[in-house]
C-alpha cells in the first residue's frame, strides 16, 4: 500500500524559515507591557457587568461584550498554581532546557489564570494549590518574560525594616526605574547571603579528601548536595578521571552540563585559571565555549605556590600569570558572551589593577568581587585588611570571600558580618571548623548556613543570587 517510488538520486533541500517581524501589542497590550516593564505591576481589566477580572487584559468581555478596555485593575504578583506540566523535551522554541515546569497560575485578584514558567522548585515537588510569586526580570525583555518566571512564595516574615510606616499610604515618591532596581537590589543584599561552594579547585586531590569530585557525575552529585544544603552557586575546575585539572572543552562542558542536569537551578561559576601551566588561550576559550553564568577573572600576576606553613619549605613554586592584557582580554570575552566575571582579588594591588582596566568601560554593573585569603603568594587574612578592601570597592559592587585552609571560616564569617557573601568548599579547605575532614563541600555549606543564621542573614536562592549579582539565567 505504501507509495512505491524510486528512492535513487533523490535530493533533499535543507532550508530554514526565519523572519524578523514587529508586532503591535495593541493599545490594551501596550499598557500592560509598559506597566509591567517600568513599574513591575501586573495589570488586568475588570468587567463591570460580570465582575470578571481578565488576565491577560483585553478590550471586550467575551461573555457580555462589555467594553472593558479602560477598566484597569492591578492584580497581585503572587497567586496559586492551578495546573502544571513538566516539559521533558528540549526544543528551540522552549525557554529552558528540560525538565522545566510550565504552570497555569491564578494570580490573586484575577479570575483567569495565566501560563508561565515555574522555577526554583524541583519538578516532583510542584503541587496544585501551591503559592507562588512573580520574579521580575532584571533587564527588560519587552515580552511576557518581563516576569522572568514564578517561584514558590516564601513564608512571610515580619522584618522591622519592611513594615509600612503608619499613615504612609499615599503617593509614592517618584523615582526612576534604575533607582528602584538598585534600591531593591541593595535591600536584597542587606539580608540575603550568597553561599558558593568551590567543589574541587585545581590542586585538592582525593587522597586529601575523598569527596573531591573528578568525574562529571561526581561534580553533579556534590553540587546537588551543596544546593540542598543552601548553596546558590558552585565554582568549578573540571578534572580528568585521574584528577588532573583539564582545559578540554568537552570535559568541561560535560561537567557543567552534568551539574545543570542534576541541579538546573544552581549557578555554575567556572574557573578561568583552570590549573597550573595552562596557556591564556586554553584558559579563556573554554569559558567562551561553555558560556557559564559566571567565571573567575584573576587580577594580578603573582606567586601561587605550595609552601609548608610550619617550616616554610617550598614544595611547588609557580608563577600565576595574569597580565593586564589577559585581564582585559578575558574580561571582554566574558562580558561579550554574557558571562559575569567574578573578580578575584588576592591583594589590594589586584583590585587596583581591575580599576585601571575598568576605565575602558566594558565591565557591566553590578561588579562582583571575591577576596581570596591565604594563598602562598597572596595575603593572609587580617580583618583590618578586609575592611580596607571592602571600603575600596566601587559603587554597585558585591563581594564574597574565601580563605585557604584554616583561614576559610574566619574570612567567610567576617564577610557575612559586614554584608558580603561566603565561599566555602574543598578547593579552599578540606576540613570543617572542628578540624575533622569535611564529608564534602556540602558539610562546609551547612556550617556557612549556621554562621549566616547566627548573624541574622538568610541564604539566597540561586535566583535571588542572580538578581543580586546581575546574572543571566541559562
Amino acid at each position, binding site marked *: 500500500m505504501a*507509495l512505491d517510488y524510486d528512492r535513487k538520486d*533523490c535530493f533533499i533541500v535543507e532550508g530554514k524559515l526565519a523572519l524578523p517581524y514587529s508586532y503591535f501589542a495593541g493599545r490594551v*497590550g501596550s499598557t500592560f507591557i509598559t506597566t509591567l516593564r517600568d513599574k513591575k505591576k501586573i495589570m488586568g481589566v475588570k468587567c463591570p457587568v460580570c465582575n470578571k477580572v481578565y488576565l491577560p487584559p483585553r478590550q471586550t468581555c*467575551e461573555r457580555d461584550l462589555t467594553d472593558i478596555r479602560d477598566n484597569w485593575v492591578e492584580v497581585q504578583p503572587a497567586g496559586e498554581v492551578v495546573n502544571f506540566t513538566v516539559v521533558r523535551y528540549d526544543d528551540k522554541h522552549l*525557554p529552558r532546557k528540560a525538565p522545566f515546569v510550565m504552570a*497555569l497560575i491564578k494570580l490573586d485578584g484575577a479570575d483567569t*489564570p495565566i*501560563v508561565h514558567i515555574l522555577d526554583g522548585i524541583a519538578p516532583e515537588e510542584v503541587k496544585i494549590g501551591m503559592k507562588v510569586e512573580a520574579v521580575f526580570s532584571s533587564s527588560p525583555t519587552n515580552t*511576557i518574560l518581563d516576569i522572568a518566571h514564578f517561584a514558590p512564595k516564601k513564608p512571610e516574615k515580619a522584618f522591622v525594616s519592611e513594615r509600612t510606616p503608619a499613615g504612609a499610604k499615599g503617593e509614592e515618591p517618584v523615582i526612576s526605574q534604575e533607582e528602584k532596581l538598585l534600591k531593591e537590589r541593595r535591600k536584597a543584599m542587606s539580608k540575603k547571603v550568597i553561599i558558593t561552594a568551590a567543589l574541587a579547585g585545581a590542586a585538592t586531590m582525593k587522597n586529601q579528601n575523598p569527596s573531591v569530585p573528578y568525574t562529571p557525575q561526581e561534580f553533579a552529585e556534590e553540587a546537588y548536595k551543596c544546593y540542598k544544603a543552601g548553596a546558590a552557586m558552585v565554582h568549578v575546575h573540571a578534572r580528568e578521571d585521574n584528577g588532573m585539572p583539564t582545559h578540554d572543552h568537552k570535559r568541561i562542558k560535560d561537567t557543567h552540563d552534568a551539574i545543570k542536569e542534576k541541579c538546573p537551578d544552581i549557578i555554575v561559576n567556572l574557573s578561568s585559571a583552570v590549573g597550573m601551566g595552562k596557556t591564556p588561550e586554553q584558559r579563556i576559550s573554554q569559558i567562551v565555549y561553555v558560556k557559564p553564568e559566571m567565571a573567575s577573572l584573576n587580577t594580578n600576576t603573582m606567586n601561587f605556590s605550595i609552601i609548608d606553613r610550619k617550616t616554610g619549605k617550598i614544595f611547588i613554586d609557580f608563577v600565576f600569570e595574569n597580565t593586564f592584557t589577559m585581564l582585559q582580554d578575558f574580561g571582554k570575552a566574558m562580558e561579550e558572551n554574557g558571562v559575569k566575571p567574578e573578580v578575584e582579588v588576592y591583594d589590594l594591588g589586584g583590585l587596583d589593577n581591575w580599576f585601571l582596566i575598568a576605565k575602558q568601560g566594558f565591565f557591566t554593573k553590578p561588579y562582583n568581587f571575591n577576596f581570596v585569603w591565604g594563598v602562598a603568594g597572596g595575603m593572609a587574612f587580617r580583618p583590618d585588611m578586609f575592611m580596607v578592601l571592602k571600603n575600596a570597592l566601587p559603587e554597585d559592587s558585591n563581594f564574597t570571600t574565601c580563605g585557604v585552609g584554616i583561614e576559610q571560616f574566619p574570612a567567610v564569617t567576617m564577610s557575612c558580618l559586614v554584608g558580603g557573601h561566603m565561599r566555602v568548599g574543598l578547593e579552599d579547605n578540606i576540613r570543617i571548623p572542628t578540624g575533622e575532614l569535611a564529608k564534602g563541600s556540602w558539610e562546609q555549606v551547612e556550617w556557612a548556613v549556621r554562621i549566616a543564621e547566627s548573624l541574622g542573614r538568610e541564604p539566597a536562592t540561586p535566583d535571588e543570587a542572580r538578581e543580586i549579582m546581575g546574572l543571566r539565567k541559562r
Partner: protein
Amino acid sequence: MQKRVAICAVAQIKNDPNLWYARFQNMLLECFEGIMSQTNVTFDMEKGIRTVITCSDDVWDARTISNNGMTDVVGAHFRGEEKMAQESLNGLGYAMASILSGHDDVVLFMGHMKESQPESRNMCTNLAFDPFYCRPLGMDFVNVNAMQARAYMEKAKITEEHLAKVVVRARKNASKNPFARENDPVSEEDVMKSPLLADPLRQLHYYPSTDWAFGMLLCSEERAKEFTDKPVWITGYASCMDSYFLGDKDLTSNFSLKNATERALKKAGIKDIKKDIQLFELCDHAAYQLPMWAEGIGLVNDGYGGRWVDDGGMDEFNVNVSGGMLNGNPLLLGGAARAIECFYQLRGEAGERQVKGAKRALAQSTYGAAGQHQAVVIFEV
C-alpha cells in the same frame, strides 16, 4: 427533510512516518487519480468540477500560500480554488456549505500534510500562539495538552492503565486498517513505561509524526447518481470555537465540543446518539482525548470517562475502529481521516474492521491547543 450533500468517492495514500521520497504533489496526485478513476468526473465547466477546496498549512509546507504548490496536480487551475488552512473536517464543512448554498454542485476536496518536513512539530505549533503573551513561554500543543490531560484525568478518574488500554487498542485496531500508519504493537506495560513527554503525557500517549494525503468528491443530492451508486450523505455539520487563552476556559468542560455536537445532531435530526449512531470516529491527538471527546459528544456522562473505558465503552459503541488519530494521522488531517473511515464503514467497505449494519456515523475533529476548536459531522446511508 432538509437537503443533503453526497460524498461520492474518497481516496488516500497510506499514512507513513516519513515519505521523504515523495513530494506532497506526488501524494496528492495519487489521491486525485483515485477519485478520477472511481467517478469519471470531468473538469468540464458546465458539468464537471468548477470548485476545488484544498487543505494544507503554510508553516508545515515551509511556504506561504501552500496551496500554490499543488493546484495544478489537483486540477484547480482555471477554476475556483479555495484553501482551508485549518482542520480538514472544517474543510469538509466548507465544501458542504458551497454545495448547500447553491454556489456550486460538484466540489473536489483535497488535503495534504507532511509532518516529517519541519525539524520539529512542536516548533510549528508554538507559532499557533500569540507572539506576546504565550509564544515566548514555549507553549506548544504537547505541553498545553498535557495540562488539559492533568485536569481531565483528575476529573474523570483516568489512570495510567486506562490510557495504556486506549493506546494498545488504537494500535490493534489500526493493524486491521490497510491505510493506517504501521506502528509496532505495544503492550500496556510498554505504554506505562514509555518516557514522559510533558507530565502526565507519555511519548506513547501522543500520536506519532505522520505524512498523508487524501481526496474526496462531493456533490449535491440531485447529481450524486452521476458519480456513484453508493453515496454517503452528510446530514449534519457544526463547529465551535472556544476562548483562546488557556486560563479563560475550564479545560475539562468540553464546552466547544458539546456546542458543536448539539448543533450538528439537530441538523441531522438525531435525538439519541447511542441508539441512532452506530459508529464514532474521534480525533484523539493524545490518549486522554478519546474518553474526553466521548464525554463531549454525549456517549458518556461528564466525569465518567475512566469507568467508561473500564466498562468496554470504546468497543460497545464502535469508537475509533480505524485506530484513530492516536495511531498516526498528520495534524490538520485527523478529521478527514475520521470522515473517510465513516465513509468506508457506511458503504460496508471496511474489510476486517467492518461494523455490521452501520447506518449512521459521527466524525469529530479538533484543532488548536487543548481542544479549542471542535467540529462534528454526521454521515448517513
